[in-house]
């Protein structure tokens, strides 16, 4: 079943120079954090904060291109997590036919916010997230994180 998400904000992860996009399920308020690059994080932040840059940024160009060609974006879905990588699909409609394009979630979200279309994910992603986040956290631990309190 698809779960509708809203974008809560973009945080900077001080350890890794990456940014974390916080998505929240609209029904039960569960949070889905997605790590993205600094550039992609900014593209999402700009859209959230309604910042207008003097020049069209890359996702503005993408949106403008879709509008020129009459390709209507319907929705984006964060579809799965594999090895800590999130996958997303962008659904487009043209002349009555619907098709989907593989995308990074960051691009899909940056585009969805600019085009005012809903962002969804699935129950499966939420279930995988619980396990994967823990694994990722464990994987990032280094030996010096242990044993600080040994006598």
């Amino acid at each position, binding site marked *: 079943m698809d779960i509708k998400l809203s974008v809560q904000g973009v945080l900077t992860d001080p350890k890794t120079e990456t940014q974390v996009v916080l998505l929240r399920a609209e029904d039960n308020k569960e949070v889905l954090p997605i790590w993205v690059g600094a*550039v*992609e994080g900014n*593209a999402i932040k700009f859209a959230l904060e309604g910042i207008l840059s003097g*020049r*069209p*940024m*890359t*996702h503005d*160009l*993408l949106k*403008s*291109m*879709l509008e*020129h*060609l009459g*390709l209507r974006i319907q929705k984006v879905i964060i579809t799965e997590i594999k090895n800590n*990588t999130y996958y997303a699909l*962008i659904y*487009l409609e*043209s002349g009555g036919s619907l*098709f989907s*394009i*593989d*995308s*990074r979630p960051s*691009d899909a979200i940056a585009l969805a916010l600019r085009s005012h279309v809903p962002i969804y994910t699935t129950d499966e992603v939420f279930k995988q997230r619980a396990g994967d986040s823990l694994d990722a956290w464990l994987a990032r631990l280094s030996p010096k994180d242990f044993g600080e309190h040994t006598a």
Partner: protein
Amino acid sequence: MLQMKVRGLMYDPFNNAFIIILRDEQEKEVLPIWIGKPEAGAISFALEGVFTPRPMTHDLMKNILESSHAKVISIVITDLKDNTYFAKIHVYYQDSEYTIDSRPSDAIALALRADAPIFATDSVIQKHSTEELDRWLDNLRPEDFGKYDA
């Protein structure tokens, strides 16, 4: 209008930016365009044929165009105002041609991925030489003068 090729990408330490160097086929004209770091990354991946496991933003753009059977005909660097370049992307889709405004960096990143030719208008090439001169004059400092005073 002149067809241009991407001849290089350099780091400009003074402005903490990158410069993409375009040259015409006869190598008579040089057009340097200052771009940001993310845009330089998008261009260098395409120049070096770096394969990323997930599609980057310009790959996504290309994939959307391909899936829709739209084709990038060309990109044109159209204007230069106050040191800012402007470009247009020409797309052929369902028997019509569409023209979309773009930053040159996005247009070039897309052209390299879509194997589309890059053009610059004559006026950009002319203006570029005069703006270059202006910038050079602006950067002159008092100590640059009078070196040959007796």
